[in-house]
């Protein structure tokens, strides 16, 4: 276990030293993953809620597909986005390949199904409980979907965190579309992969400890906010 304690020491040294390069990597990781989460929420939450409150032909098939897409392999998403954004691809003219924007795009694709599928489930369960009351008050389905999203905000926090965790932890997609360019597109996970392949295991592990700490801190903060708000509003 000396490797782990060494890594812990390395992590402490990295943090204590406030290495500006490390800070850049951390900030870029957060920027990319949080942007991806924001986009995925804008698309995934309304989509999940809409499917949750509606009944249409092919709904079950759509849910199965959506659930399956939660398991999208990051490298496959990375490859698809790479093909889209590469010079010869349909979006090649945007010149986004190997930029943080491309990484945000890839991660958003990766986690939108997670947020949509999980929110679909909680909205559908709540709809079973609320639908008579909301229909009695004259609410239409679009309004009901929005009302339920707001009413379920505390449950949705956990779902959004699941999406963030997935985005912050994945390496395959950002590696392919970002290219792990030092100072431009290098994030925590690609840096860890690089240091591992170079054989600098303590640094790689140290970076891993930093990444875990950040994810833990964000989850803890969200949990505390959610709990106190929930206790206040029941």
């Amino acid at each position, binding site marked *: 276990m000396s490797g782990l304690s060494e890594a812990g020491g390395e992590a402490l040294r990295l943090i204590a030293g406030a290495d500006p390069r490390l800070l850049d990597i951390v900030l870029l990781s957060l920027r990319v993953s949080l942007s991806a989460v924001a986009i995925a929420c804008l698309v995934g939450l309304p989509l999940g809620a809409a499917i949750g409150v509606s009944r249409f032909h092919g709904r079950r098939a759509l849910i199965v597909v959506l659930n399956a897409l939660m398991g999208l392999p990051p490298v496959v998403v990375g490859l698809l986005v790479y093909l889209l954004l590469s010079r010869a691809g349909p979006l090649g003219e945007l010149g986004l390949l190997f930029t943080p924007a491309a990484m945000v795009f890839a991660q958003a694709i990766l986690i939108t199904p997670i947020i949509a599928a999980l929110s679909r489930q909680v909205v559908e369960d709540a709809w079973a409980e609320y639908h008579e009351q909301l229909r009695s008050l004259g609410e239409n389905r679009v309004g009901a979907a929005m009302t339920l999203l707001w009413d379920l905000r505390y449950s949705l926090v956990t779902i959004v965190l699941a999406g963030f965790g997935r985005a912050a932890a994945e390496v395959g997609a950002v590696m392919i579309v970002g290219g792990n360019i030092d100072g431009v597109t290098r994030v925590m996970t690609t840096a860890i992969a690089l240091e591992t392949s170079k054989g600098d295991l303590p640094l790689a592990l140290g970076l891993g400890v930093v990444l875990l700490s950040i994810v833990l801190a964000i989850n803890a903060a969200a949990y505390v906010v959610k709990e106190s708000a929930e206790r*206040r*509003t*029941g």
Partner: protein
Amino acid sequence: MKSELAMRESKDLLPLRLENIVFVAGGRRIIDGISLVLDAGARTLIVGPNGAGKSVLLRLCHGLLEPTAGAVRWNSAETPGCARRQAMVFQRPILLRRSAVGNVSYALKLARIPRVQRIARARDALRKVGLEAAAAYPARVLSGGEQQRLALARAWSLRPEVLFLDEPTASLDPRAAQEIENVIAAMHAAGTKIVMVTHNLGQARRMADEILFLHQGKLVERADAGRFFKDPASPEAARFLEGELPW
């Protein structure tokens, strides 16, 4: 008593006509050919044994269910997409995770009440049910009885012409139930038609002007409340009142 509905411009919603309605679910005829006319005024209580179709009848009237056959006709039908002129209170109040006053103003928003009027009107409704002090409390932390009174305030704020109630006191203690009955009586006095399902015969005695007695999906008896309890015309109702039919 001054009617809240006196100023209404449009034609009255009532009377409501049910024309030989049938509701089939899972191969069972839950409502089996009921025809009746509900007029404004009298408090109509629907009683009958479990599985008689009371709650389903209420939902068919309110439009939450579509009859398999037959028709539900209002004197002047509500326009889809416009504010509703009828309301319903359920056995278990469904309240949103917002303040008590927020729950009422949400309903007012759906009723197309201008934003500037909503809070005042919501607070007025809360005052009428004795919840003005709880206006800012989260609705979900209120007691069961308070939650049901809030559901009634929400319905009352809409000034409905008809209020449907599906066993609104079934899960409440006698004191809370009494408060609910008082609110319903006040709403009735303010001009709202009351149509209520109950399995509590004491409550039906206290509240009813007329009784609809349902049995196995059929309207077996419709009678003035005093007469129904003293001298039921149908053998099913007589057995029900004697406690031989489960309720």
